[in-house]
C-alpha cells in the first residue's frame, strides 16, 4: 500500500490542477448557489413562512412534488418492464428501442415541450381520440403528468439495466432447481437484488421531474393554483421583481434536491454492501 502512495506522489501538477479546480468550481457553481442561500437568510422566518404557505405557492409546490412523484412511480413500473424486455428477451428492433430510451435525455426540453403539447392538444394525434373519451390532457394537470413521465423514462431504465445484466444467472438456476416457480424467483430472488437500483432510479426520475421546466410549461396550461408548477412560479415572481418570493421557493426546491442526492448516495452505498453478501 505504501508503494501506491509514493508512486502517486511523484506525478506533477497536483497543486496547480487542484487549485484551478477549486477556483473554477467556486466561481461557476458554489458562489452562485451560496448567493441564493444568503439571499434567503435576508428574509425573516415569518416572511419566509408566509411566502411558502401562501395559497398559490403551496399549490404550485403540491403540483410539482405530487405529480413528479406519481410520474416517477409510473416510470418505476414501466422502466422495470422496459429493462426486462431489453435485457432478457430478443425481439426485432431491440437495439433500436434500447437507443430510443435515451431520447428524453438528449432532446432539448423546449422541443419535447412543444412536441408533447402538439401531440396531446385537443386536435392532436393522441389528444383527439382521448378528447372523444372525455379525457382532456393538454392544459390540465394530466398534461404535466405526461410530460414528467416523458423526461423520467431513462432514469429507471439506465440505473437498473446494468444491475440486471450483471445479475448472476446461477442464483436463479439454484432457486429453480430447488423447486421455486418462476413468479417466486422473480419476486423473492430477482426483485430484491434490484431494489437499490430501482429506488435509485425512482429518486432520480422524481428529482428531475420536480425541477423540470421546459418540457412541462407548454402542455401545462399554467393556470395558477391548478396547473402551475413551482419552477414556473419562480419565473413569474422574477418577472414581477418579487425576488424574495422567487428565492424562498427556490431554496425549498434546492433543499429537496439535496435531500434526494443524499438519499441516492445512501442507496448506492447500500447497494455496494449488498453485492458481496450475495
Amino acid at each position: 500500500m505504501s508503494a501506491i502512495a509514493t508512486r502517486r506522489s511523484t506525478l506533477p501538477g497536483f497543486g496547480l490542477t487542484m487549485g484551478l479546480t477549486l477556483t473554477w468550481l467556486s466561481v461557476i457553481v458554489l458562489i452562485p448557489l451560496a448567493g441564493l442561500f444568503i439571499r434567503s437568510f435576508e428574509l425573516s422566518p415569518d416572511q419566509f413562512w408566509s411566502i411558502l404557505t401562501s395559497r398559490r405557492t403551496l399549490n404550485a409546490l403540491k403540483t410539482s412534488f405530487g405529480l413528479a412523484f406519481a410520474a416517477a412511480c409510473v416510470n418505476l413500473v414501466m422502466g422495470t418492464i422496459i429493462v426486462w424486455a431489453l435485457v432478457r428477451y430478443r425481439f426485432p428492433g431491440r437495439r433500436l428501442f434500447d437507443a430510443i430510451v435515451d431520447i428524453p435525455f438528449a432532446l432539448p426540453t423546449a422541443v419535447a415541450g412543444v412536441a408533447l403539447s402538439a401531440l396531446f392538444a385537443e386536435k392532436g394525434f393522441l389528444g383527439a381520440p382521448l378528447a372523444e373519451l372525455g379525457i382532456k390532457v393538454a392544459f390540465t394537470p394530466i398534461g404535466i403528468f405526461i410530460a414528467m413521465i416523458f423526461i423520467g423514462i431513462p432514469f429507471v431504465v439506465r440505473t437498473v439495466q446494468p444491475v440486471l445484466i450483471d445479475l448472476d444467472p446461477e442464483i436463479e438456476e439454484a432457486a429453480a432447481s430447488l423447486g421455486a416457480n418462476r413468479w417466486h424467483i422473480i419476486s423473492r430472488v430477482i426483485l430484491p437484488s434490484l431494489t437499490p437500483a430501482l429506488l435509485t432510479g425512482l429518486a432520480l426520475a422524481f428529482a428531475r421531474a420536480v425541477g423540470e421546466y421546459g418540457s412541462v410549461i407548454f402542455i401545462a396550461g399554467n393556470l395558477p393554483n391548478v396547473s402551475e408548477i413551482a419552477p414556473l412560479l419562480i419565473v413569474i415572481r422574477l418577472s414581477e421583481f418579487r425576488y424574495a418570493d422567487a428565492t424562498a421557493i427556490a431554496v425549498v426546491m434546492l433543499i429537496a434536491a439535496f435531500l434526494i442526492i443524499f438519499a441516492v448516495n445512501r442507496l448506492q452505498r447500500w447497494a455496494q454492501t449488498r453485492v458481496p453478501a450475495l
Partner: protein
Amino acid sequence: MTMELPHSLSLIRPSEKARLSAHRDDLRSEPKAVRIVIVGVAVTFLCIFVVMPLVVVFAQAFSRGIGAYVAALGNPEALSAIRLTLLIAAISVSLNLVFGLVAAWAIAKFEFPGKTFLVSLIDLPFSVSPVISGLVFVLLFGAQGFFGPWLASHDIRLLFAVPGMTLATLFVTFPFVARALIPLMQEQGTQEEEAAISLGASGLQTFFRVTLPNIKWGVLYGVLLCNARAMGEFGAVSVVSGHIRGETNTMPLLVEILYNEYQFVASFAIASLLAMLALITLVTKTILERHLDEGRQSHDN
C-alpha cells in the same frame, strides 16, 4: 440469450453445450405469452411517449411543405438564434473541456481526503432545477443583486445579454466533461504517466503524449454530451436572457416565442434542427461508447 458458460462446462461438446444453454435459458425465462405481453407493453410505451413526440416535430415542421420549412430556417431571426446558440455552446464547451481535463487530473491521479465530496460538488448542477440555475445569476448580477449596482455603475451588462446566458450555460453543463473523464482516468491508473516522468518527460509532455491519447474517446464523449446540453438548454438561459428579440434568443428560446405566436411551422422547423442534433448526438454517443468499451478491454489485457 447470449451467456457465457462457466468454465467447468467448457469441455462439453458444442452440441451438448447448445442443448444445456437452451435448458438454462428455459429456467431463466417466462412462458412465451408472458414474454410477448412484456415486450408489447415496453414497445408500445416507448412508441407513445418517445417515438411519437419525435415524429410530431418533423411532421409539424414539414406540414406546409419543404418551401415553408426552408423559408422558416432562412428567416433572419432564425439565423441570428442559430448563430447565438453556436457561439454560447462554443464558449461553454471549450471552458468546460479545459476544466474537465484539469479537474480529472487532480481527482483521478492523486489521493486526497474529501475526494468523494469534491466529486459530488462537481455533480451538483445536475440536480439543480434549470430555472434555479438561471435564478442564481439573476440574484448575483440583477438590478437588486449583490453585484448589480456595481456592474450598473461601471456600465457592464451581464444579465439579459450574452455573458449572462453563457454563465448560465456553463453552470448547467459544468459536470459533463469531468464526469466522463474521472472514472476513465481512475481505471487507467498512473503507471504509464509514472514511466514517462521517470524517463524525463515534463508534466505537460506526459499529459499530451501519454494521458491524452489514452482518454481521447472519453474526452469526445464528454464534449458531445456537454455540447448537446449547451445547445439545447432552455430554462436557465430563458431566465437570464431577458427575451430580447434578435439579440438574446437562442434556438430553444425562439422555439418558445414562435410557438406562443402560433407560428407553428417556424417553431417546429427550429425544433427539428434541435431534434436532429439530439439524434446525431445519440448515434455518435453509441459509437463512442463502443470505442470506450474496447479501450477498457484492451487496457484490462
